[in-house]
């Protein structure tokens, strides 16, 4: 059976290898004239300086955390086990960091090269930007496969992969929430002072926050989103592996096969993504959006064919195939349904734009209401995928229902290489447009980058829907893994060998549900308040620069971009401390004080409100953003109208919704689920009530 793990490891190597080759190809492209290179360097330096600070903070946290893990698990089990968990934890954080660093490095090199390529037309510009984006997708998948397979090959224990996943999750939480706070701080401050107070256009080089704004796109949408999907990708795989180890009716090679089946799915997904990436082409005059969507659909089909062939050839239970397909199809459908609520000419967006003429209050109410409605189809999709996966698998004599749910989550995330590539393309072309403006490139270049950017926004919206849904299935699988870990711990400790029952009649359970349910809102509030506090500081800085240096607006003096970049970075990292602390410590407090059932209920509450809040905020934010763009494109009065003013308010409210709090909730619930699963054996043994 090890041969499959070796193949999967090699698939990881291939992905990383292609990422490196693509990286080098992108770097070899023309970086443009001196002015363009200078602007790109500002963004690159700002992004790298932020990542350096983030990774320094993470390194300290990782060392402290790994020591705790080594001690706790060393005492509870064996010193070797404790050391293993500590090492895999650091390894997980390291792999995720390297993937994020690679993705962001190529993004900040690909942006300027895209704007230069745009001088020759849309095809070369798209090629550069999409290939640059694919580096993030391939690096993420490749490093995750390398890490998981290596650990399993060395230790033969799925629990050790849990340590790897926890490390990746911790990095994801910091990267996603920190990147989200950074990007919206800079965006809101740049817009409020630049556009509203002074009247300068988007990406105008006279705005002191313009570089920070472009840096934010990279740290939030490339490094942050990449880390988020890396986390879900690994977490879903490890959850399914843990559930595989607990399958009761299997032994020997069969048992191992179903334990490593998630790794095999990831391997096939990486191959499907590699093929799918080659199929994404744009001809002159074409729009890139359909090409990106076509790539995603083709990758999905290729993966489905590969899995079917594998199941039939290797004699794997067909229930596993149906569970995989249920997750795969649902993930794709949910991704595209989020486009219905946020697409720029769809009824919800048009109606929100229309009512904006009556003021910002109505804009907020309408957008928020559609955001609430948008939860329904995604949740129904998750429910359908869960039920199909569960019952199909439960009807099998080989696997069981919860394993089916875990496999559905892996099926959904297996094509992440393609999804992340499309997502990372968004900020690259967004930056390319900014650089074209700041470097004073021709109007034709700006026009090409505008077309590329519009497709990037849609890709981002689809990825968010996909990421949230994937996280939902992942945490459901992790939830089952947690229950399974508790059960096995109880058996080890000689307790009653019965599955854990979480009854709402138990007051501890009710308390746990409520405490879990309030955690995502609290986390959202903390991250969004950080944005407003930090934006306030940056607004003051921008105003100060305009006040003290009138030459900035006259175009005779260059703004101090560095101060705004540093301000955004330092404030974002400071703002992370409390939310990150809550994510790790709250489940432990609940578990050690209130017991395993209460912690299970806590996770349930957090998962339900977390998914609802994440979908609401991502979709309402995207809807408000596009309602503003719809008005700006000449509807309901266009720019400068009352509808425009109200839609700008909606967009500003929606910014931290969709780019800070919403996407970070995926990671929050994954981290809490992983902490709980990891500490489950200890919590089962030691709790106060």
């Amino acid at each position, binding site marked *: 059976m090890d041969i499959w793990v070796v193949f999967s490891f090699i698939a990881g190597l291939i992905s990383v290898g292609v990422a490196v080759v693509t990286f080098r190809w992108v770097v070899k492209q023309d970086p443009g004239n001196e002015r363009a290179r200078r602007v790109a360097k500002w963004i690159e330096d700002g992004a790298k300086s932020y990542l350096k600070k983030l990774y320094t903070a993470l390194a300290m946290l990782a060392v402290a955390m790994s020591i705790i893990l080594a001690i706790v698990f060393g005492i509870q089990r064996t010193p070797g086990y404790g050391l293993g968990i500590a090492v895999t934890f650091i390894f997980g954080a390291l792999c995720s960091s390297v993937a994020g660093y690679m993705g962001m490095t190529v993004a900040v090199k690909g942006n300027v090269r895209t704007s230069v390529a745009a001088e020759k037309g849309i095809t070369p510009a798209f090629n550069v930007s999409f290939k640059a984006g694919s580096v993030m997708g391939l690096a993420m998948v490749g490093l995750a496969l390398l890490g998981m397979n290596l650990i399993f090959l060395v230790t033969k224990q799925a629990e050790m992969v849990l340590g790897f996943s926890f490390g990746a999750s911790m990095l994801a939480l910091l990267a996603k929430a920190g990147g989200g706070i950074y990007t919206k701080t800079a965006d809101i401050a740049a817009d409020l002072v630049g556009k509203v107070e*002074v*009247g*300068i*256009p988007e990406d*105008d080089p*006279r705005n002191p926050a313009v570089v920070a704004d472009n840096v934010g796109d990279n740290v939030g949408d490339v490094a942050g989103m990449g880390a988020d999907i890396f986390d879900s990708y690994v977490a879903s795989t490890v959850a399914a592996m843990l559930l595989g180890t607990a399958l009761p009716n299997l032994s020997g090679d069969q048992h191992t096969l179903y334990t490593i089946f998630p790794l095999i799915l990831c391997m096939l997904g990486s191959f499907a993504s590699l093929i799918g990436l080659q199929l994404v082409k744009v001809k002159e005059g074409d729009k890139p959006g359909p090409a990106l969507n076509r790539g995603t659909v083709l990758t999905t089909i290729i993966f489905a064919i590969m899995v079917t062939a594998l199941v039939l050839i290797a004699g794997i239970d067909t229930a596993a195939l149906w569970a995989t397909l249920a997750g795969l199809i649902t993930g794709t459908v949910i991704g595209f349904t989020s486009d219905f609520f946020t697409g720029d000419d769809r009824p919800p967006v048009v109606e929100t734009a229309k009512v904006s*003429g009556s003021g910002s209050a109505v804009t907020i109410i309408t957008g928020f209401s559609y955001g609430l409605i948008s939860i329904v189809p995604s949740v129904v999709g998750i429910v359908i995928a869960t039920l199909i996966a569960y019952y199909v698998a439960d009807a099998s004599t080989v696997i069981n229902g919860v394993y089916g749910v875990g496999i559905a989550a892996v099926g959904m995330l297996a094509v992440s290489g393609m999804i992340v590539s499309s997502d990372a393309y968004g900020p690259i072309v967004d930056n390319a447009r900014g650089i074209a*403006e700041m470097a004073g490139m021709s*109007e034709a270049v*700006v026009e090409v980058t505008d077309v590329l950017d519009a497709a990037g926004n849609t890709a981002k919206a689809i990825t968010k829907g996909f990421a949230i849904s994937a996280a939902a299935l992942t945490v459901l699988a992790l939830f089952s893994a947690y229950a399974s870990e508790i059960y096995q711990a109880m058996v080890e400790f000689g307790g009653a060998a019965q599955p854990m029952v979480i009854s709402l009649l138990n007051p501890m359970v009710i308390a746990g549900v409520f405490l879990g349910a309030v955690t995502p809102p609290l986390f959202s509030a903390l991250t969004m308040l950080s944005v407003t506090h930090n934006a306030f500081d940056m607004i003051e800085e921008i105003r100060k620069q305009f*006040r003290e240096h*009138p030459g900035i*607006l*006259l*175009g005779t003096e260059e703004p101090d971009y560095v101060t705004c970049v540093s301000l955004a970075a330092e404030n974002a990292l400071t703002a992370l401390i409390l939310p990150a602390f809550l994510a790790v410590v709250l489940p432990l407090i609940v578990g050690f004080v209130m017991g395993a059932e209460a912690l299970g209920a806590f996770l349930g509450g957090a998962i339900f409100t977390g998914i609802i809040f994440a979908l609401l905020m991502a979709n309402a934010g995207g809807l408000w953003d596009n309602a503003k763009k719809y008005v700006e494109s*000449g*509807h*309901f*009065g*266009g*720019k*400068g*109208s*009352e509808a*425009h003013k109200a839609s700008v308010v909606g967009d500003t409210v929606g910014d931290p919704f969709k780019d800070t709090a919403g996407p970070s909730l995926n990671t929050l619930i994954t981290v809490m689920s992983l902490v709980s699963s990891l500490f489950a054996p200890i919590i089962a043994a030691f709790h106060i009530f």
Partner: protein
Amino acid sequence: MAEYTKHLYLSMLPEALIASQLSPEEFGAYYAVGSEKRSRGQAIFFEMDPDFRTEDLPIEEGLRRCVPHDDGTPKRSVYISVYRALERISLDAIHKLYLVTQDGRTLGVDGADACPEDTGGLHLYQEIAPVNPLVVSTLGPLDFYDLIVKHPTTLLKLPAVCFAELRLGELASNPEYGSVGDLPYANIDHLRQCLVDLRTKIIHTKMVDRISAPTFPYRLLKTGLFVGNERHLRCFSLPPAEILRSKHYRWWRSADM
């Protein structure tokens, strides 16, 4: 000491005659973006013949005081008159119109050889100086100017006027049901009613807003900007949008065209 050319500018927002050593583009940026004194905002001004003189205004004295600062930097503004300037100058002395965006991008517009003919439909006029009402009318720009400056039918008469014709889109022909499209006017229902009144009542003009802020998005300029006195009228039309985008991209972006 550096030598600077002296310029004479007739500002419409607010109405003032100003001497300056800044070029029109520099003056536009300075005037719109401001200085430490924090004066800022959209600006519209004409570049005048620097040799123009009139006994009604102390132009010579203003130009005499327009000398570089002690540190050698050019004098940015010497205000010669801050009210009733338009009615006291000769329109023949106007060289060029400059439209300045809120963030200081300046576009120079040459006077048209002939003023545009009325193409029919209803019209919307924003008076810029000396008074600022927003008016709808059945009259084309030439007839409107004639009505308020040369041959008024009421007691109201202006000695000179600067006004802009703004776009009405579909409302010009279908005030009741025409799509608003990208017209950003506040209180659009009131505007529709005023336009309907022009059709249903025997009137040529109707005031939409007595004191309307004389700033507007430049994309709304229809036939252009007009400046006239009792002697004659001069017209300034914006170049076509594609020319603005290709040749004046920075201004085009800042003006949100």
